[in-house]
């Protein structure tokens, strides 16, 4: 079953969607960076103290 086809985006709408997608990507990247940096900060110098 298929619904009515959505109308194509105008160039301006497509550009707005592209900018929103980039912003979401930036937020996700920032979130990954936050968790990475936070993990290192919480582990502290002990992160290097491990049996080799």
């Amino acid at each position, binding site marked *: 079953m298929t619904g009515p086809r959505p109308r194509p985006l105008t160039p301006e709408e497509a550009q707005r*969607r592209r900018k929103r997608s980039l912003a979401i990507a930036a937020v996700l990247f920032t979130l990954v960076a936050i968790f990475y940096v936070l993990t290192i900060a919480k582990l502290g110098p002990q992160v290097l103290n491990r049996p080799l």
Partner: protein
Amino acid sequence: MSARSEALQDNRNRDPMTSLSNSLSAGAEPHPATMVVGGEVSDFFALLKPRVMVLVIFTALVGMAVSNVHIQPVVGTISLLMIAVGAGASGCLNMWWDADIDAVMTRTAKRPIPDGRIQPGEALAFGIVLSVGSVLVLGLASNWLAAGLLAFTIVFYAVFYSMWLKRATPQNIVIGGAAGALPPVIGQAVVTGSVGIESLVLFLIIFIWTPPHFWALALIKSGEYAKAGIPMMPNVAGPQSTRRQIIYYSLVLFPIGLAPVFLGFGGLLYGLTALFGGLGMLAFSVHVFRNREGEAERKAALGMFGFSILYLFLLFSALLAEHSLGLFRAVIA
């Protein structure tokens, strides 16, 4: 009434769960008269009330500084960021809920939802995701007391204040002011894992400062609030009673502003700022009381509104300077 306002009014039936459901479905099938395909990134940023976020970061930072406890800089920075995001999320949810009254007030009519640049459902989803995300990351970064306080602040502002108090009682901004006063308490919880007298005093300063600050603005915007059906103090108790209450709150604020000196965490710089700032608040409140007509009334109220912002900024800046730049000189041994 425009099609946009009607659509927003239709969506506001005072039942939060039904309205929430309507908003989410409105996001899927927008009102034909208001159909847009997503807003700009800047529109989403505007939903977070960036100026309020800056104030929240500042007051939370002071809450951290007065605790005099070292915090890992990365943890501190991420925690501050999450407190700001949480505050922004509650602002976003507030804009979602208040879109109908924003549409009829000149000051707020150009906000993204009443202006039709963002659909209510988009704003609701954005606010919920940021609320949950900020609380979780704050809990993981610092501790769950701080995260719990942030969650409480968001719920207090977005649900208790926006959905009930604001439209129900002229004491709306008095009680609702607690949400804006909590960031220093969250800041102290981040660095110490507990809540101490220092942040509670800072909470009290912002809490008592809020009514004279907002009522000064409400005095000159009472027509707008009446149009939107918001029971602000000047509309319910009258301008004269509001002016009197502004003086009462400024009188109470004066000794509370000096409390950090007597409790030993405010030094000479802070003491002088609180002394002259408190006297300034009193002088402006008397000026508002005496000027009741025309342009003089407007200028007096705007003066009070502007000075109240400066007062709070200087008070918190003095504390920050004393505790982070080593400018603390004890007044009471």
